[in-house]
């Protein structure tokens, strides 16, 4: 970002140093090895210059003056004294001021031991207090949301949290109240700090004022062992520090990097830490007998599963899932099914995604950092705030800080509408028509179209909802690529779905972005795998229908819950019900796992190591820090045992060994070794090559001519951040935050049905649900929006059209 800034020379405490021009003095000094104390300064926030801890002396034409080094840009010839008597007295003075009203309840403070106030009082403070007056008193911590507590006595009013909420997350639900000695950070009356990003304020709080309920009093910082890893909550793969105490993951922190998350996490990323320690976790293999699960040994479970899977014709077996875990796990899954079982039917997506070749190989593919230089951003896909919240932060920054123009096309209001230059809302099903008009710049779309004429353009393209035809995204991408200097970022949400596709967990792909139709690639793979089942295979929809029709017999569910996640739950239920044998790799009992004959417990967050590939095609390292719970095991090792039991041999003794095999087998992953991902520049991951490099698959998106539906009750259903999925349900911090779900109606539709907010409606689509009504004027008339997979909405599914009836009094 700043590599081409010219260097200037400043004199720092008597020594001439070369620094980058334009940066803040506090940064320049730090890079030159001089740490200036600071509290309000944070490199990812705009400088506020309020704590005054970073005062230094700068020589000027009218003598030396004390200036805050966080708001003072360096200039050529600047003479700076950070340790002069005056500077040191000022720094000491500020520290004393900060401490006069600080309660010094460090022994019972979560921050104690990792507290910038403690550390800097130690390094820069006077060491004793002269304050004998009464300190400021407030009610000790008050909850300001379901997750966050605020201790106003500890607060030093640095405004990091309020600036984060205002500048970064765009939901300023906390602010200063009163003034002077009484100024305090607090929420607005009756408005909790219900932000999807609230945990970040706890992490950047330089004292123990903001604490997170899930972590409070769990550990002392000096007991913590941590390892760097990435979050598999969504496909952005935010960098995290997995922090443990006594083999328990007690906290997840964001790790700053330029590439993905800038240190920020969504609260879902952050507070899923304890699902791995849930009492509901399956930690022993389970075998179903007479309709009931009983605990079994691994030997028994493996031999039963191998025996049953081996009893069917290879192509009668199918696999679904593989997107929740590492690339190594996904690779083992693909290898086991394609070469040991001998079936082409495997899919990491659950009918809620995109064409695998498009997702894996659209070109040119944008990196997240392309947003930093984008002039125009087209977002035609999911509501990022709900589905890819950290990407939402990056887009928000690109617009509000860097001045990009944002054009959003979506069926309803999204989290970014407030910063968008143009928002186009449409009735689901009419997308192709909207696209044609937008491309032509017709009438109401003329302004948005002309905004798109300014490159570089980054097009964020995905499905706006689960009822939408996935081919629309490709048509949008095709249009986008005609825009000036355009790149496309395909939007898929689920954990490591891009890694799974790259590992060949797709009906049309072999590992390393090789098409199943690519004869040479296939031959090359056969040298390593022996045999590779003929493709292309069935996708998840085809697999579920195949099972229901008796065309398929058995199913390997690898961390997938099609009953909850496949858009047509009735199809999922029929398929699972009809299957002769199902083995499920799971951490928790799920609606789908309940159909299994064998459940194999798998290791999860912090328990596994490997790599994962994110939305940009960036491969990063996942690290282990705790042993697997109970008898649970990494997925790859289970497939290893199953392969052995079926007389084959994968030959992998560890995830690391599999990684080496991937580097040798999968062209796009050629030569990538773990060491590269752990140190130096590779710590931020390596973006896999585009088609000019080793990636053989090319995919130019095409307008597949999606038909518009004509139904007058159109369903828009999409995921929200906190849903009724297994991970949220078993994470104690956020489980309670999932809403029950409602039917959102345009006011005129509500009046046609003679219902108002709070009344109930019955909706019949693939399934049938009763929901309270919420009036939503941002929808097109004739559209009903139902959040997917919440307690009350699960089972409705994502049929394109639904019937709606008011539930009359007494009937509810």
């Amino acid at each position, binding site marked *: 970002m700043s590599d081409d800034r010219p260097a200037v020379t400043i004199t720092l405490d008597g020594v001439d140093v070369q620094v980058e021009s334009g940066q803040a003095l506090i940064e320049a000094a730090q890079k030159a090895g001089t740490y200036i104390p600071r509290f309000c300064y944070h490199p990812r926030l705009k400088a506020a210059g309020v704590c005054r801890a970073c005062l230094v002396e700068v020589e000027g034409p009218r003598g030396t003056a004390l200036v805050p080094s966080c708001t003072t840009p360096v200039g050529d010839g600047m003479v700076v004294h950070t340790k002069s008597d005056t500077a040191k007295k000022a720094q000491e003075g500020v520290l004393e*001021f900060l401490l006069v*009203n600080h309660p010094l309840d460090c022994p019972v403070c979560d921050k104690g031991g990792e507290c910038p106030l403690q550390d800097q009082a130690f390094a820069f403070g006077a060491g004793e207090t*002269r304050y004998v007056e009464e300190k400021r008193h407030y009610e000790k911590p008050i909850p300001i949301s379901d997750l966050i507590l605020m201790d106003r006595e500890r607060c030093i009013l640095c405004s990091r949290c309020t600036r984060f909420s205002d500048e970064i997350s765009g939901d300023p639900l906390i602010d200063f109240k009163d003034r*002077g*000695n009484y100024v305090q950070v607090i929420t607005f009356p009756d408005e909790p700090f219900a932000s999807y990003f609230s945990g970040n304020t706890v992490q950047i709080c330089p004292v123990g004022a903001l604490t997170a309920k899930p972590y409070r009093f769990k550990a002392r910082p000096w007991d913590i062992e941590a390892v760097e890893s990435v979050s598999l909550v969504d496909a952005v793969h935010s960098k995290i520090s997995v922090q443990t105490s006594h083999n328990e993951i007690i906290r997840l922190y964001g790790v700053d990097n330029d590439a993905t998350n800038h240190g920020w996490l969504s609260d879902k990323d952050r507070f899923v830490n304890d699902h791995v320690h849930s009492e509901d976790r399956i930690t022993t293999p389970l075998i179903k007998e007479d309709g009931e699960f009983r605990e079994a040994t691994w030997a028994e479970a493996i031999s039963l599963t191998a025996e049953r899977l081996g009893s069917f014709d290879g192509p009668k077996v199918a696999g679904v899932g593989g997107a929740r875990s590492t690339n190594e796990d996904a690779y083992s899954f693909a290898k086991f099914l394609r070469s040991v079982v001998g079936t082409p039917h495997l899919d990491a997506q659950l009918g809620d995604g995109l064409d695998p070749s498009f997702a894996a190989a659209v070109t040119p593919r944008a990196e997240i950092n392309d947003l930093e230089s984008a002039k125009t951003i087209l977002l035609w896909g999911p509501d990022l705030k709900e589905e890819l919240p950290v990407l939402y932060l990056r887009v928000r920054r690109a617009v509000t800080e860097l001045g990009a123009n944002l054009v959003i096309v979506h069926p309803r209001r999204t989290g970014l509408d407030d910063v968008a230059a143009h928002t186009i809302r449409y009735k689901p099903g009419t997308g192709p028509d909207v696209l044609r008009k937008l491309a032509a710049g017709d009438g109401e779309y003329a302004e948005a179209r002309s905004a798109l004429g300014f490159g570089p353009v980054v097009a964020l393209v995905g499905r706006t909802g689960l009822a939408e035809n996935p081919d629309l995204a490709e048509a949008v991408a095709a249009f986008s690529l005609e825009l000036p200097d355009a790149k496309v970022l395909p939007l898929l949400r689920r954990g490591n779905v891009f890694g799974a596709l790259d590992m060949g967990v797709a009906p049309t792909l072999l590992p390393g972005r090789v098409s199943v139709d690519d004869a040479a690639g296939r031959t090359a793979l056969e040298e390593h795998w022996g045999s590779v089942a003929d493709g292309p295979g069935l996708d998840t929809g085809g697999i579920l229908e195949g099972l229901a029709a008796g065309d398929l017999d058995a199913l390997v569910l690898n961390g997938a819950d099609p009953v909850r996640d496949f858009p047509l739950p009735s199809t999922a239920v029929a398929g699972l019900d009809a299957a002769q044998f199902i083995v499920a790799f799971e951490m928790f009992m799920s609606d789908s796992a309940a159909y299994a004959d064998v459940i194999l417990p798998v290791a999860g967050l912090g328990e596994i190591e490997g790599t994962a590939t994110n939305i940009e095609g960036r491969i990063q390292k996942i690290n282990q820090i705790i042993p697997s719970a109970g008898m649970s095991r990494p997925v790859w090792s289970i497939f290893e045992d199953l392969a052995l039991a079926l007389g084959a041999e994968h030959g992998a003794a560890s995830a690391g060994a599999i990684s080496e095999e991937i580097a040798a087998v999968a062209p796009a992953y050629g030569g990538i070794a773990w060491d590269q991902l752990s140190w130096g520049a590779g710590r931020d991951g390596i973006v896999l090559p585009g088609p000019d490099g080793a990636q053989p698959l090319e995919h130019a998106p095409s307008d597949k001519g999606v038909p518009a539906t004509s139904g007058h009750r159109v369903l828009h259903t999409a995921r929200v951040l906190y849903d009724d999925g297994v991970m949220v349900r078993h994470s104690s911090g956020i489980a309670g935050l999932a809403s029950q779900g409602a039917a959102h109606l345009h006011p005129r539709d509500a009046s046609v049905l003679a219902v108002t907010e709070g009344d109930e409606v019955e909706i019949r689509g693939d399934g049938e649900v009763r929901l309270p009504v919420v009036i939503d004027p941002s929808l097109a008339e004739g559209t009903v929006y139902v959040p997917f997979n919440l307690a009350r909405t699960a089972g409705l599914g994502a049929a394109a059209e639904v019937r709606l009836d008011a539930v009359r009094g007494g009937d509810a």
Partner: protein
Amino acid sequence: MTTSILLDRMVAHPSDSHTLARYVDTGGYETLKKALNSMKPEEITAEVKASNIRGRGGASFPTGVKWGFLPPDTRPRYLVVNGDESEPGTFKDRMLLERDPHQLVEGIIISAYALDVHHAFVYIRGEYPKPARRLQRAIDEAYEAGYLGGDILGSGFDLDVTVHLGGGAYICGEETALLSSLEGRRGEPRIKPPFPAVEGLYAKPTIVNNVETISNIPWIVANGGAKYAAIGPETSSGTRVMSLSGHVKNPGDYEVVAGLSWKELIYDIGGGIRDDNKLKAWVPGGASAPWFVPDEHLNTPVTIDDIAKNGSMIGSGAVIVMDETTNVVGAAHRLVRFFSHESCGQCTPCREGTTWLERILARILDGYGRPEDIGLLLDVCDNISPGLAWPPAMTTICPLGPSATAPVVSMMKYFRDEVEAMVSPPPSGGDVAGGDRGGEVQFEAGGTSNV
């Protein structure tokens, strides 16, 4: 001392000096006509520069120079008139707003014409409902008469004026805090640069001038800058409204020409000290100004430069007189408490430091002073305003925090023995020293015009 620019009308016509009829009857809006009909904007600016008028809000910055800071090509520009007069002892703008609002309105229109401004704002302190009402009525009258709105007097010049009543915070008199408040944000000073002339209201070039400053503009344009400059000493040109309060016999607003002595101001104009008590000290220019004492300063001249040379400032022209009965710790406590109460709370040294000073002073008044409190008070002041110099060095964004050190430093400079007496250990068996906050009660009961 008989020259009057600003107060003539209200003195001559106390019952209706605020009405349009009286204003026009006494020659009002004639200067506007002259300006719009026969003067170019830059000619007006030239007159203002030639007048050498310096801002009456407190900083005494030359108005013409400030106007010259506007970047030439950025539009819109705004004019904001600062009527947030909240400094203890200052009550001159209140009178100008209440008694002669059209004089200000005419000044605004002429200034706006000179600055190519088409929307001006007047920010009035929240505790001034009557002045705000009077001004709003004057503005309404001006709209009706065609002095405001579109195509003013057929000149093609358009101007709207908006009156904004503050929420009761002294800090909003600081120009950048005022702009934030006007924008609907918390009234917190902004880091300068950028200065308002470059990036002010709504991030556009903005001139912020005091009510009194702008009220002078009609006279300057009518009579010429040179004539204004000829009044009084060169660097304190024109007249100035001084607010006299405290222990004088005749508190009030007086329009004076700079150059008279403090003795003349306090004794001849103010009528001397109440009960013919002895003069102990006075605040020469608002609560943030270091104090003056009779031995050193009574015969020095009242000019911007002479006051500065003697280590204080003329500020907003508020003179608070303290007689021999004044408990200096009580007086300092009262002033420090004001700043502590009015600190916006952004900057640590101001938020924590002013409150700490206030608490130490309160403790001394309550009889629990310790000898080490003298050094502590001065060192806390030093940590807010390093070096305790004048003009003050700052550890903060705005001068409010450093202002709070002025009374403490003044008290120590001139009356250290009195403070020492209050913090000495009590003689055995005797009462604790001090133990009397009586002075403070008196301050509170007196209100602004009778500290």
